[in-house]
């Protein structure tokens, strides 16, 4: 009996000490250096510290792109990852070997608020959800200049034929119809990547067959079409003259100020216009990449990044509590007020403010109708070849025929699939 009292007292004392030790937790956070990401994370951590004064944060930034991938992988491999970090969902998430490196978040209460479409893209092969959404979803499609459309009496096209007819009219009026910016090579891929809604509308099994090495770009006419579109736009002579030397910033400037009519891009570009040309923000509209059939017109969606907790984190419990807090409607509103709404947030019941930019307004109807959106291929299949942007620059500049580029891209993809150890390659 005496011993029992002793041990209870001891346990009590230990709990007290543990409580004291837990009182001061500093969570390290690693995020990419996009100004919107930084603003969102700073607002979220400030809100969390206000509610839980014993938890403080140390935010560290990393670059995006390929160098950012290397940093995240290196730090996970060496066990030096921050307690909380943000990173892409979809195929890049799968490349992190999530089953071993990332903490399981399936049982967090906040997961109930997350849309199922997002959970899919942060679920590891064993079925555990390992992330919560961080930031707005993006659409891939075509920005257009509203004043030019009004001046020429055009309407946003639903089919590719209408789109090309609009282009001809714009060209006849002496304006630049389609903007391409090949200095930033990644911008050249949009006609192909944003066409994925149309691909899956025609070939519903493409992603699965593609991963299993049963379907190829070169042998699937619907998938090939993206390459052909790019070639067609070049051959029609509707591009800006300096397409080879223009940059992404130039492209956003041109489409917002009316130097050009169309710019295929991700809706992420809205933030760029908001910073550089705030007066022209509402001159810019948005529509999904048109396909062959007006009845089957829909938007290809890029899922937002997610935040993750590494399995090896020393402060896993506290970090998961913070993540749980991020997956709430209040946190979602915090993010909107910090970074603005460049797209819908994937939290149930998180409404966007009424004063969103015109391009976002144009994007929202796609999300409100069931079956009008489809995730981009990179969220459905882990395969994305590294040379796509070089090939699309070649096609878009008329150096290489579309069929040739599609075949070469299939070869490029093969190396990556083998590296990932996918079956049947």
């Amino acid at each position: 009996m005496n011993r029992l009292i002793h041990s209870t007292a001891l346990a009590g004392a230990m709990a007290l000490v543990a409580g004291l030790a837990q009182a001061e937790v500093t969570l390290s956070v690693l995020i990419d250096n996009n100004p919107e990401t930084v603003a969102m994370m700073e607002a979220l951590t400030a809100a969390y510290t206000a509610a839980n004064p014993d938890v403080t944060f140390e935010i560290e930034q990393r670059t995006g792109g390929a160098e950012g991938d290397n940093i995240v992988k290196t730090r996970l491999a060496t066990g030096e990852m921050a307690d909380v970090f943000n990173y892409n969902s979809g195929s890049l998430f799968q490349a992190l070997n999530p089953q071993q490196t990332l903490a399981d978040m399936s049982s967090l209460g906040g997961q109930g608020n997350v849309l199922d479409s997002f959970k899919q893209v942060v679920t590891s092969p064993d079925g555990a959800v390992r992330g919560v959404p961080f930031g707005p979803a993006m659409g891939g499609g075509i920005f257009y200049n509203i004043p030019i459309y009004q001046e020429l009496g055009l309407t946003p096209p639903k089919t590719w034929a209408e789109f090309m007819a609009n282009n001809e009219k714009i060209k006849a009026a002496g304006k630049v119809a389609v903007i391409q910016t090949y200095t930033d090579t990644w911008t050249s891929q949009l006609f192909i990547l944003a066409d994925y809604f149309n691909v899956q509308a025609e070939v519903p099994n493409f992603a699965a067959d593609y991963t299993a090495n049963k379907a190829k770009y070169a042998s699937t006419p619907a998938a090939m079409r993206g390459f052909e579109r790019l070639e067609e736009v070049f051959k029609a002579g509707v591009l800006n003259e300096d397409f080879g030397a223009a940059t992404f910033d130039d492209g956003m400037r041109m489409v917002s100020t009316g130097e050009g009519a169309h710019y295929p891009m991700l809706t992420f570009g809205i933030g760029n216009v908001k910073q550089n040309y705030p007066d022209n923000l509402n001159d810019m509209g948005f529509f999904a990449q048109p396909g062959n059939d007006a009845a089957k017109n829909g938007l290809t969606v890029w899922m937002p990044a997610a935040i993750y907790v590494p399995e090896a984190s020393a402060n896993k419990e506290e970090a998961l509590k913070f993540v749980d807090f991020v997956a709430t409607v209040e946190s979602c509103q915090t993010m909107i007020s910090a970074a603005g709404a460049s797209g819908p947030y994937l939290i149930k019941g998180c409404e966007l403010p009424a004063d969103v930019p015109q391009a976002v307004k144009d994007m929202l109807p796609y999300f409100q109708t069931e079956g009008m959106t489809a995730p981009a291929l990179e969220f459905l299949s882990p395969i994305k070849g590294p040379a796509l942007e070089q090939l699309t620059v070649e096609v878009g500049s008329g150096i290489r025929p579309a069929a040739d580029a599609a075949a070469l891209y299939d070869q490029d993809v093969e190396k990556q699939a083998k590296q990932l150890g996918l079956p049947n390659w």
Partner: protein
Amino acid sequence: MTRRQTWTGIAALAAATLIFIVPFVFIFLMAAKTKQDASRFSFAWPADWQLWQNFVEVIQTRNYMLLLAYFNSTVITVGAVTGLVILAALVGYVLQRRPGRMSNVVYGFILAGLMIPPAVVPTIWVLQGLGLFKTLHGMILIQIAYNLAFSVLLYRSFIGTIPRDLDEAAIIDGAKPLQIFWKVVLPLLKPVTVTNIVVQSLAVFNDFTNPLYYLPGKENVTVQLTLYNFQGQFLSQFNLLFMNILLVTIPPLIVFIFFNRQIVAGMTAGAVKG
């Protein structure tokens, strides 16, 4: 001066201006622009001079990160270059003066150090094992290890130009090996030491990838890493980025202006004999 010489002089000056001054002027003008103006990337006069505002904003960004970065970079550069000069001079001296099988093996390792690229993850394991990961002194050791081979080569070839007679005279006077090195040889190495200091401090100060991988952590930023504050894939603040570049360029520029003559002298001095 003949007329022809005048013309070639003017042509050379014009070429030098085009290659060296114009980019610098471009950086300066970009650093003085507003965000909107800078995003156009044009070589034009700023519509609205924002030099001071940009300067203050860059300094204050992320809680005065740039000042901390200057401190870290200075510590790493000074520490690494001091270590490099001392170690490389010692190794180069022994290698040059005592040819033999052992020297050849060591020389082979030095060439390997120049040729074989280092692997990141195993290096981090070693650092973690030694408790040096994420520390400034760990970073200094890495910079020494990565740059030692080049410094040794510079020293070795320069020491070849110092006559052995000097060493022998010192031996006859009763000097011990270390005394020969410190009192006789090292003072003669001044030109090549200056070259080493300049070349290596530029390399260490400008290094971007090594601190990126070996020195993570908010407190461990170096100046080159601060450039990431203003450049993202979708949204860049080019005016602040260029202001940051301008500020980061200043320390190496000062080094270059002061040591300009020695750099050239040291380069040619080391190159006389292979």
